[in-house]
């Protein structure tokens, strides 16, 4: 009887769980962090591509402006040198607008179209982080307004009640539904699981020799023969990569509100992507992973970072305040 009742309630329970998982309210500052880090990443990619714009995107460059380009691929219409430069300048401006939170949805749409366009014609030069930019951009485009820590919120707060600006940029609550963050969390997990799936069967990854070869290769910032003698270092670096990539998605997904597991996973990620940024020429990949990690932030993480910054500020201003107190002021000296 009990079992039958539970079975009957199961579909409703599953729907309730999915609804809560996707739509539960989350601190709007988390969305702000994702928005800002995404804008920085998008700006980074525009800057990285700027010097290659002529070679990769113009009519006479090395890409292929295929005749069947979809109408929303902007390079179907823009091919001249000046046009490409202007388009990239607009993309850079859109990235700055996303960072500042001004006409965010419009700026996200511009960045999304820009990414779609350059990946379509520059496909042979496409990097993994271009895909991350496009996917995160698409998710944010469908996500709730990210008005926390934005210029829009400031404009909206100052605008008179009932005005056009107030209607568009008016204040929102301190929370937003979580669904877009969930999609990003899912994407981060997929990236790691897919890459481990491909790496794990390879003998170089298993023997721990991979990092020795990688560090001598064209992708390394320190491509010296000395790596051939650093066998144990190579094994530790190689296996750390596999361990981190295997552990991070599960630790983050299963951590929920558990601070320890979440921060343990963040720490593994910092080790992995910090290492990539320092030792290799693909630092942009590390930057592109930041918004996906930011999607896992919880309000207490932001509170703790804010408290830490405040503490550091107080510490750094304390000696100077003490010095000011011990030095007689100009006015006092003049009086005496």
């Amino acid at each position, binding site marked *: 009887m009990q079992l039958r009742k539970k079975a009957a309630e199961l579909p409703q329970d599953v729907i309730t769980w999915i609804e809560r998982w996707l739509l539960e309210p989350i601190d709007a500052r988390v969305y702000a962090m994702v928005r800002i880090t995404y804008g920085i990443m998008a700006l980074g990619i525009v800057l990285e591509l700027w010097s290659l714009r002529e070679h990769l995107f113009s009519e006479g460059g090395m890409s292929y402006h295929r005749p069947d380009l979809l109408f929303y691929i902007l390079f179907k219409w823009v091919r001249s040198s000046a046009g490409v430069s202007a388009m990239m300048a607009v993309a850079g401006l859109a990235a700055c607008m996303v960072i500042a939170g001004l006409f965010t949805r419009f700026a996200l749409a511009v960045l*999304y179209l820009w990414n779609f366009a350059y990946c379509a014609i520059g496909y042979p030069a496409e990097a993994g982080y271009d895909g991350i930019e496009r996917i995160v951009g698409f998710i944010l485009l469908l996500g709730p307004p990210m008005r926390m820590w934005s210029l829009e919120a400031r404009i909206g707060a100052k605008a008179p009640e009932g005005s056009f600006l107030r209607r568009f940029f008016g204040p929102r609550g301190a929370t937003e539904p979580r669904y877009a963050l969930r999609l990003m969390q899912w994407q981060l997990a*997929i990236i790691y699981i897919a890459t481990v799936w491909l*790496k794990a069967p390879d003998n170089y990854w298993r023997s721990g020799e991979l990092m020795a070869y990688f560090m*001598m290769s*064209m992708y390394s910032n320190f491509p010296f023969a000395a790596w*051939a003698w650093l066998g144990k270092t190579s094994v530790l670096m190689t296996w750390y990569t596999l361990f981190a990539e295997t552990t991070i998605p599960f630790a983050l997904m299963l951590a929920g509100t558990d601070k320890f597991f979440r921060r343990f996973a963040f720490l593994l990620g910092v080790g992995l992507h910090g290492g990539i940024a320092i030792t290799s020429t693909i630092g942009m990949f590390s930057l592109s992973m930041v918004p996906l990690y930011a999607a896992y932030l919880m309000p207490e993480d932001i509170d703790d970072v804010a408290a830490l910054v405040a503490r550091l500020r107080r510490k750094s201003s304390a000696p100077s305040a003490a010095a000011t107190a011990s030095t007689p002021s100009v006015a006092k000296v003049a009086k005496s």
Partner: protein
Amino acid sequence: MAAMVSANLPSGTAFGNSLRRPFGHYIGYVGLWQNWVMFHTIPHFHKIRPVLVASYAGGSKTEHGPMLPGLTKYEHRTRLGSLFFRYVWPTGDINPYAESYLRKACGEVARQTGHKPASVTLRLDSYRLMPLNEVRQTHKTSKPASDTSALNVPCS
């Protein structure tokens, strides 16, 4: 979420493309395609230098910088490295891009030299990484190598 998973499923299984098909259009139109092959095995090169090779009717050959426009020299950037790897060893989806590049190169060589080549191809001069035990013996990371693209586009 299902589309994200579907975009990563291998197509070489007994399921073929059937697991990807329901999301195929959605993935294509909204840009969810993705590929996380990131150093699934060792990188093979210490340094690369792609060169454009133009062949003439009499059998003579000239070499040019591979960067278009302008036939300027290659300056290493990770993206450009990937591009030239894909042009030297093109897969089915890259073929039209590589052919278009070589066709443009034909015109650029003709414009710069005043002689229209019979065909153009891409050669990848490189320093290829040696096995670790050889690196320990020779104290060198790599040795010179050269690979030529399977594509040799006639300049019509």
